[in-house]
């Protein structure tokens, strides 16, 4: 289960500035991994606290669900094209 590596966004509307983003998310993987490793003791403490407190357990589960949702978004593609506006979103 890997998070997205690349996100492309393009929005073209007449009379407005064109938005074209190419976001290399994979560059954030290594810093995120470093932060995750550094935060491991805190996470372990939260897990132990979560055994006793359902609210903490629910919070941890929701954090994991958000991360899983982010990882599962790979492959999403949205293209809307009419005579005036053009929207393109691609998550890889």
């Amino acid at each position, binding site marked *: 289960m890997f998070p997205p590596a690349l996100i492309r966004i393009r929005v073209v509307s007449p009379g407005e500035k064109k938005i074209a983003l190419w976001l290399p998310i994979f560059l954030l993987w290594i810093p995120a991994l470093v932060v995750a490793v550094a935060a491991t003791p805190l996470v372990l403490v939260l897990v132990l606290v979560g055994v006793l407190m359902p609210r903490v357990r*629910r919070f941890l*589960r*929701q954090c994991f*669900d*958000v991360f*899983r*949702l982010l*990882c*599962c*978004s*790979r*492959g*999403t*593609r*949205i*293209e*809307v*094209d*009419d*005579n005036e506006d053009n929207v393109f979103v691609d998550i890889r």
Partner: protein
Amino acid sequence: MLKDGKISVSEADELLSAIGQDQTPPSEAEPVDKPRKSPKYLRIEVREPSRGSGKDETVNIRVPFQLIRAGMKMHSLIPSNAKQKIDGALKEKGIDIDIENIDSKNIEELVEALTELKIDVDGDETVAIYCE
């Protein structure tokens, strides 16, 4: 059987030849039904022909089934008062689903139903919903 003396050498040779002929090569054997690949994406395509000289309006959406599963499992993030409103709205449409009690089995049943879904509407607008 040859070792026990029940058959002669020539008879053993005939038996071995018969066994060898019965073993048809894999290419001549009946093809094994390959397991059907489960679709990965839900595709929605809408095309509306242009009324004037402009180009057709198109909507093309591809959603991974994994994202649908993960999204449905996130019902715990929905506030309780919003869940009640959602349940009420679904019941008005004739859909008797309790969002609070959706479990993995329900999600898999829904995704399985979606994988078999194929809709083609051809009118003023062309709408296609399918899985790939």
